């Protein structure tokens, strides 16, 4: 992003910025974890487990925290969700496991499942303790396209089941949006890469970064050279507003700015506008708005075309934006972006007009289908069945790139796991 008078780095000093990017939910010390674990009722057929997209046996892992059996607890978590560490940080628990917790009925305060999950997994990832063993080698080879949560989860499970895996990844680091997208204060201290390292340590997985597969010929080759293919390429395109002024300097894709932010060695060197307008109502919009604020923007306005209930960002995320100083406007759609050589303001159909040095577009992403046209689609994404099978034999897909998902890390992990189990079943038949 341009660095000029209106958009510049250093609006806050380094320590102020560091403070804004501290761990959003600091880890529980043992004393607090034990008390919190004690609040779990060890439910039968636990509603929290049913609500977890990866089906982690939550009462069991909490029970093991109570008895200081941390290795056992982490094993319970990671055997259903190899990204249990990241999910503990980024899952919108208030609409998943914690929403289902029976403690809500009892006292409107669920067990802090996310924080307990982090308590159990952090020491294992920190020490690199290997909890899994590979089955006897099958001699089969699987290609995984995309090294995000879906691809990594699939690869890990396949490796555990005895197959060899090659991951073809577009970016220079694996982790997908864990590395390039998730808000920085949710995953501090380079956690995304620590988790990638932990996953790869199982062995049998070859990671090839900067190896995008973008032509139909690529997919054909993979199908020929490998026993199975899993596609987990996420969403490569950002949606456009399609309005006047969209090309003005200062109008940015939120996703790209966030990726720069996540990769910045020193956040105080990142340019930021004084007046920032964010268009959109999802997690990306919230994240770019809050992070702009924490980088030193003076006014951040987030504008969404519908009401708070329709926002895909959860209530907790919306509240986080508001307490961070972001002003949220509902029921307003942009009409045009105005500026002379650089964006100056945004005008909305409903009459609202906001001054802007930067406008972030955060109205969703779309599948970049180049090279994957042979796979049948459904509402713009790859169509799969309940086993994550695509329309082409021996090709599975999962994560954000498939239709019918909810665009969460945890769901991508589950897709990868289900696909791996089905691939294993198929490979053992032949």
């Amino acid at each position, binding site marked *: 992003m341009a660095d000029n008078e209106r958009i510049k780095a250093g609006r806050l000093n380094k320590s102020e910025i560091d403070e804004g990017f501290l761990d959003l939910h600091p880890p529980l010390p043992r004393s607090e974890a034990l008390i919190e674990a004690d609040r779990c*009722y060890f439910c039968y057929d636990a509603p929290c487990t049913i609500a977890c997209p990866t089906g982690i046996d939550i009462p069991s892992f909490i029970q093991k925290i*109570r008895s200081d059996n941390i290795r056992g607890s982490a094993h319970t978590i990671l055997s259903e969700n190899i990204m249990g560490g990241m999910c503990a940080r980024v899952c919108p628990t208030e609409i998943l496991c914690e929403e289902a917790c029976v403690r809500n009925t009892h006292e409107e305060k669920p067990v802090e499942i996310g924080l307990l999950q982090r308590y159990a997994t952090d020491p294992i990832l920190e020490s690199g303790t290997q909890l899994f063993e590979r089955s006897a080698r099958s001699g089969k080879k699987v290609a995984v396209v995309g090294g995000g949560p879906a691809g990594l989860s699939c690869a890990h499970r396949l490796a555990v089941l005895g197959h060899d895996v090659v991951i073809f990844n577009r970016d220079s680091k694996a982790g997908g949006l864990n590395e390039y997208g998730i808000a920085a204060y949710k995953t501090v201290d380079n956690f995304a890469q620590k988790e990638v390292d932990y996953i790869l340590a199982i062995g049998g997985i070859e990671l090839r970064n900067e190896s995008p597969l973008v032509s139909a010929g690529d997919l054909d080759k993979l199908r020929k050279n490998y026993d199975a293919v899993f596609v987990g390429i996420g969403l490569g395109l950002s949606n456009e507003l399609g309005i006047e002024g969209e090309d003005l300097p200062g109008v940015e894709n939120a996703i790209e700015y966030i990726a720069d932010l996540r990769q910045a060695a020193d956040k105080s060197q990142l340019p930021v506008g004084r007046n920032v307008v964010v268009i959109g109502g999802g997690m990306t919009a919230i994240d770019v708005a809050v992070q702009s604020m924490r980088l030193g923007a003076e006014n951040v306005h987030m504008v969404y075309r519908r009401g708070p209930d329709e926002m895909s960002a959860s209530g907790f995320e919306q509240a986080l934006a508001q307490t961070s100083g972001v002003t949220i406007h509902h029921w307003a759609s942009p009409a045009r972006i105005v500026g002379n050589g650089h964006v100056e303001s945004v005008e909305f159909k409903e009459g609202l007009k906001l001054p802007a040095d930067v406008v972030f577009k955060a109205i969703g992403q779309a599948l970049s289908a180049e090279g994957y046209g042979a796979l049948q689609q459904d509402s713009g994404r790859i169509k799969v069945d309940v086993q994550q099978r695509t329309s082409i034999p021996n090709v599975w897909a999962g994560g954000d790139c498939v239709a019918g998902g909810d665009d969460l890390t945890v769901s991508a992990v589950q897709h990868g796991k289900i696909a791996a189990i089905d691939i294993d079943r198929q490979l053992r038949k032949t």
Partner: protein
Amino acid sequence: MADLKTSFLGISSPNPFWLASAPPTDKAYNVNRAFEAGWGGVVWKTLGEDPHIVNVSGPRYSALHSNDRRVIGFNNIELITDRPLKTNLDELRQVKKDWPDRALIASVMLPMNAESWTKYIPMIEDTGVDGFELNFGCPHGMSERGMGAAVGQVPEYIQMATEWAKQAASVPVIVKLTPNITNIVPPAKAAQDGGADAVSLINTINSIMRVDYDSLTMYPTTDGMGTHGGYCGEAVKPIALNMVAEIARTRELAGLPISGIGGITDWRDAVDFLALGASNVQVCTAAMVYGFKIIDDLVDGLSNFLDDKALTFDQLVGKAVPSVTDWQHLNLNYIEKAVIDQDLCIQCGRCHVVCEDTSHQAITNSVDGVRRFEVLDDECVGCNLCVSVCPVDGCISMQQLTSGNDPRTGSAITEEKLRWTEHPNNPMRKMD
């Protein structure tokens, strides 16, 4: 406010809460603080012959904790007083002078010969104490020297030592019993036969807390070695209550006053002991865990309870004793079923899984495909397991069947009582 001023064996105190003989009553400093806080009386830390014993200088105590480190049970290997007799006697004399309205009892432990008792009892009584408590209960250390529980486990010794004490004392004598026996009645009877004015119980229960998971030695140790201690605190209350009730309902022991001890932490615990036959109570662990201030809740909790129930203190004492009987006298025709209040149920499913796995498969996990927990009356045996595990107070209750048939057995409900003594399945039944 109900009047809690009580007289136990003619020894009056502003309330029935005494501190048991233990560290809280070790010396004048502690006892003065206890009386300032409002305790009704103290049983001084057990006195013995000079030269005084010595304690280990490592861990004496250890605890069974809940996850939030609440102390549930407590273990100790402390011996009797480790100070010279004269120091204790001087302090007893001064304390009685300073606190004339409080009960001051001297706990004693002496060797099994008449001379010791004849020599020391009058010497101690001379300080002005209101009574004696004979420590026949200490289960560690002292018992290895032929005192404490070593006496308390042999009824003949109890009787003998009690007689010696009674001959030498002009103030009342309480005999403190050990729970480390199979039947509490013979030791209590021996005390009574020896002339005891009352019994107090329980002292601590032989215990080893756990092992150290690193060294795999017992825990705690003194220089690598450990020994069993005495268990007390909340965890022991049910054991103590049973022993108190056994004494209270034994005909031959009728009229023997009881000072109840063991796990008393709040006023409800005191109500348990009083209703089951104790006419005063003693506290040790709760004070060691929370400090003397807990007396506030003990006193006004009990007083408010008596007001609510419109009972006097004396009316509460022994109130529940008639409800305690032998198993063989329970009415086998009486039938209860669990009933779940669906408005209170938070759907944790605990009742279902415990009944399914370990009881009588009498609670559903779904009804018409929807998660729902309902009792099946044709399977429920009324065991109270689900009530015990349900995390919501009052959500499951046991309700009596008063008419029709028991859906489980098909037999008609009757008001007629049927006890095991008359039950057709009892080969030894008494025929009328």
